């Protein structure tokens, strides 16, 4: 398996598409950081005693979107690009039948490919994060504290899991579909649905399950919203953005979108906002992370089983 892993890894790093995606990601990182950096100074001027300034580099949106949003939307694309032709390209080139007729276990092929993909994702995201940290130090001039560094590390972990999930999904499609275009399009279609249309789908489900007859009835509204929230969690994109926004924004205490508060409560919350300690933020995120890891394992398991059952012959 080590041999396959090494070959796949060198394939990834040598491939043109890796260079192009990486260049694109880096460019976006630089542009957003500099935009956010400029924006951040203005935002901080109004604050009495700002804390966790460094994290705002990642969560504040400049003119377009924050970096966190960028990874949430386009991270899947990176994963899909890394995985969509993993197996079917070898099948079409007839190298797969050669590979499996060598004295290796057949699962070594799939393990090696998954592992190489995850390592590539890790290196890509880690270097991206470090680059932004460096740029942030230059443009904003704030140094992250230990807690902020810890939060970033957790964020990195969740992001790796997220992009790896999409890569795993793409590899699964590359096993299921013989044609490169079909597997790429299937993965992209799923990505578009989960990223852009899940909101509508969740609303639809919510209106079907918990209809709001009277818009002034708070209980019905809450029930409706709860169902919609739960339904939208079916999307890994939502899962990821909720998990990361809790990790990177210590002032968020809940993942609920709709919180019913009275005016006095709201006032006191605004007045006496205190950041959640890192440990507590992690507690909030753990279920999300474990769900995401579960999704990766499901993709891997399905890939593993289908691949081991498939007959491989050159045609």
């Amino acid at each position: 398996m080590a041999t396959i892993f090494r070959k796949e890894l060198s394939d990834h790093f040598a491939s043109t598409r890796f260079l192009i995606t990486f260049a694109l990601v880096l460019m976006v990182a630089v542009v957003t950081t500099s935009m956010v950096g400029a924006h951040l100074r203005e935002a901080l001027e109004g604050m009495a005693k700002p804390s966790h300034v460094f994290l705002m580099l990642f969560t504040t949106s400049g003119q377009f979107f924050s970096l966190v949003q960028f990874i949430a939307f386009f991270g899947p694309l990176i994963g899909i690009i890394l995985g969509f032709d993993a197996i079917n390209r070898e099948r079409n080139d007839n190298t797969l039948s050669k590979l499996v007729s060598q004295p290796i276990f057949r699962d070594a092929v799939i393990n090696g490919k998954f592992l190489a993909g995850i390592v590539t994702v890790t290196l890509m995201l880690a270097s991206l994060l470090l680059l932004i940290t460096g740029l942030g130090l230059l443009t904003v001039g704030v140094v992250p504290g230990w807690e902020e560094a810890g939060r970033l590390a957790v964020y990195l972990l969740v992001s790796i899991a997220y992009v790896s999930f999409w890569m795993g999904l793409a590899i699964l499609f590359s096993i299921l579909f013989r044609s490169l275009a079909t597997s790429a399009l299937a993965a992209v279609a799923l990505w578009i649905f989960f990223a852009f249309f899940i909101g509508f789908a969740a609303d639809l489900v919510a209106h079907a399950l918990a209809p709001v007859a009277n818009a002034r009835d708070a209980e019905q509204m809450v029930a409706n919203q709860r169902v919609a929230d739960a339904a939208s969690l079916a999307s890994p994109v939502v899962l990821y953005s909720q998990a990361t926004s809790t990790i990177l924004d210590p002032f968020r205490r809940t993942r609920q979108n709709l919180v019913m508060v009275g005016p006095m409560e709201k006032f006191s919350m605004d007045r006496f906002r205190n950041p959640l300690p890192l440990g507590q933020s992690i507690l909030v995120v753990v279920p999300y992370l474990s769900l995401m890891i579960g999704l990766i394992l499901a993709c891997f398991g399905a890939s593993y089983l289908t691949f081991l059952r498939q007959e491989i012959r050159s045609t």
Partner: protein
Amino acid sequence: MAAVIETQGLTRRYGRQTAVDALSFQVQEGDVFGFLGPNGAGKTTTLLMLLGLTEPSAGTARVLGFDPVRDPLPIKRLVGYLPENVGFYDDLTARENLGYVARLNRLAPDASRGNIETALDRVGLSDVGDKLVGQFSRGMRQRLGLAELLIKDPKLVFLDEPTLGLDPDGIHKILELILSLSRDRGITVVLSSHLLDQVQRTCNRIGIMVQGRMVATGLLSELTRAGESLEQLYMRHFQQR
């Protein structure tokens, strides 16, 4: 003389269709076995079952004394398989392609370098060893496929239509190579083909497969009647069905 391949009632069904039907045959050590039959007769499926790449629906096989269902790894270590359309990584050079296969076979780096050079030399590709395989002609790819088999120093090789789509010169070179494998190294060769004159030139033992059944198998000299060519023999068995 020991049986290198031995099958008993080997059967493979796909749904209701039977691709290989109760196949029983033997190949002895040192044989060049011509595996004949029309397209879709089940030759490739049989080879896949012998390599442990496909599970038989019924029956047993032994290859070099190992059971391909239970013990595919030692078989794959000792058997070289050249599929009908051999694939290479087109963005790697010939040497890199062979190096990958050598590493998959866990050859020591020194041994593999030596094996790669001898194999390339043997198939006459030494001078283009550092070219990308994407630029190779079909004949060169086929020869590179043979080189790939040689680096693992096999006891037995399966060649699935190795001369398909080659020009006469390419066919001649491949057949010469196959014969030299058997002569110089004592490698047992299973050659699947439906080009009868090639088989007659290279093989000493044949098996004819039609619609999943082995209709005739044995030494070429025993099967042919006096003055009969392999083509006549083949047509005789083919028309009996």
